[in-house]
Structures are given as structure tokens and as C-alpha cells.
């Protein structure tokens, strides 16, 4: 799976869980996206997991600051 595919899945999961309708950029963080609170964060990660068929360590996702970090984390997870 290419980086671009993973990015799209992450964007899609963020939109589904937050219902955020604005533009999403990979340099954004949770603070930039309305609805991305602590509970939504977990749901976003579980949804990405579902689409990518992964089972990421939730704790590792708390150390991500931007969506770029999240993309990189899932790229590593898929390897």
C-alpha cells in the first residue's frame, strides 16, 4: 500500500469520526479539527485499524502530533 492510500484512509477515518467538513491537510493536528477530542481519537485509530487491517498500539498514537506523524506510524505498522 502506498503512502497516498494510507493518507486517504486516515483522512476518511477522521472525517467519519469527527464529521469535520473543512479541508484536511496532513500538517494539521487534532487541535485543528473540530470534534477530534480524546474519545474521537480512539475511534479514529480503531477505524484506521479496521480499514488497514492493523492492530496498532494505542499508546504509540498518543505521541503523534500531526497527521503526518500518524501516517508515518501506520506506514511502519504495515511494514
Amino acid at each position, binding site marked *: 500500500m502506498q503512502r497516498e492510500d494510507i493518507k486517504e484512509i486516515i483522512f476518511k477515518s477522521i472525517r467519519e469520526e469527527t464529521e469535520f467538513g473543512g479541508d484536511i491537510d496532513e500538517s494539521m493536528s487534532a487541535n485543528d479539527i473540530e470534534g477530534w477530542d480524546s474519545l474521537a481519537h480512539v475511534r479514529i485509530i480503531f477505524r484506521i485499524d479496521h480499514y488497514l487491517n492493523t492492530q496498532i498500539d494505542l*499508546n504509540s498514537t498518543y505521541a503523534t502530533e500531526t497527521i503526518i506523524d500518524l501516517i508515518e506510524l501506520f506506514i511502519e505498522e504495515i511494514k
Partner: protein
Amino acid sequence: MRIIEIYSENGEKSLKAAVIGTCRVANPLNKLRENNNAKVLWAHSGFAHSIHDAIQWVSLIKNKKVVPKGLYQLIFGRTFDELKGTETEKNFMRGLELFNSCDILLLEISSNKRVHTKNFDFNSNYLNNNFIRPGGIEILNWWSKVCKGGEIGKEEIENCTNKISEKKLFTKKDAKMILSECKMTIDENEKMLESINILKNDLEHLECVIIVNPDPSYSDVSRFLSNECRKNKDFKYLDPNTLIKKFKVEEVFMGKGKDKNHYDEDFNIKVGEHIRKFIFSNERILSDF
């Protein structure tokens, strides 16, 4: 929940503290043990985030509420068998004896979000790890609707109940109850204060010390509680940011400062000392607001 005896800097005084919260209070106070500045007298598995979790913990230790076998994972984080649940009653009896002789309640309020059924409050982390994630996509879809306040039909509850019981995660009866009743509600500040006062009135013998979540996203809640403490003096108030601001973020939190939910292993002792100094001081409030 823990009951910890904490000793003053010169060792002349001690306070017996009932501690309810997360690893952000448990780990720092545990660290105090290394220099013989504290002793854990009693502990039970399970963290609390909201004021409602805390109220439930007090009800449990006072034996006013009993957790059914099937809900252990969502309240204590571990199963009935893992926790040797048959000994829980005895353990809580011992806890109650100590609780009644406590001097202070160290109460960390780290969330204004409440996850609950009619009779029980669930720890959202435990629900995530023990119910939603292992349940699969159908359960995640159910949880998304719960969090967004959406309608959930009988058929969906039936399907999800079957999924959970097929995977032998919970009994059919417990799964159905959780899926039908579970709600996520967010406390307004005034409502939270009301709940704090209910707890305080129930525990008149204890001095209540509220410790807040240092995450900036909770600053509205922290500002409110800080102001209420100034106005009413009903409880002492400690904002860990009064310590954190003196250090680089990389030194404070795990993941080189990125994981704001967990203090760095070496920083825990500093937080523990900060709490200890505060509870033995005459100050009622340590806040930046």
C-alpha cells in the same frame, strides 16, 4: 483507587490519603515510596477519569454498590477471574476500614466526559480496549453513534449483542445491557461542581484536594474549578501546570514530550514531590488562572 500514607518533608507529620484518579497521580505518589516518603496501604485495580467515576469508587469502597461479575473489565480494567473477584468483598472491607481513617481525598478530575449506563460508570479506556476494539467494526459503528448522540435501532443492538457474545467477550445479557443503555454525556462545569459537592458532603471527614488534568484542552474546566475554589474554599486545588511550566516539555511527558497523557518516568517523582509539598502546606490553591 489507592490509600497511601504520605510523610512530610521533615518526617514529623503524615497524612493518610484516599487517592482516586489515573496514572498521573498514582505513578507520582508511588515514586515517593522509593525515598520512604510514602507507603501504599491499600490498592485496587481501576482508574477514574470523571467525577462520576470517583463517586462510584466511593460507593464501592463504602459497599453501597457492588460491581457485577460481568462488568469488572469495564470498571476495574481486568476480569473477575484475573482479579480473584471472590476476594473482592474482603478486599473492599479492608479498604473501608482504612478509608474511614483517611485525612484527605486526592481527587484527580481528568475528564468532563462520562461513559455510563443507568447504574454504572465505565472507564472509557477499558470500554475501548475490552469491548469496542475486540468487538470489531459493528461495535465501533455502535460506539460512534453513542458518542455522536445518534439513534440506535433494536436490530443493531441485537446484531451487536450477537457479535459480542459470539466472541465470548461478555455474556449475552451483559452485552445487551451495555449496548442498550450505554451513553456518553459531557458535564457542564456547574453540573460537575454539583457532583463534586455531593461527593464532598458525603465525605465530610476528608479534606478534598482536586488535581486537574494538565492538558491545555481542559483549561476551561481548570479555570472554572480554580475560580470556584477561590470563591468557596470548599476544596483545595492543584494544577500540575504550576510545576510543568518550569521544565521543557520533553522532560515532562513521555515520547519526548509528545504523549501528553503520561508523565515521563523520571518526571513522576517531581510531580509526587509537588503534590506532597502542597498537601502539607497551608496553601489552598496552586493555579495559574
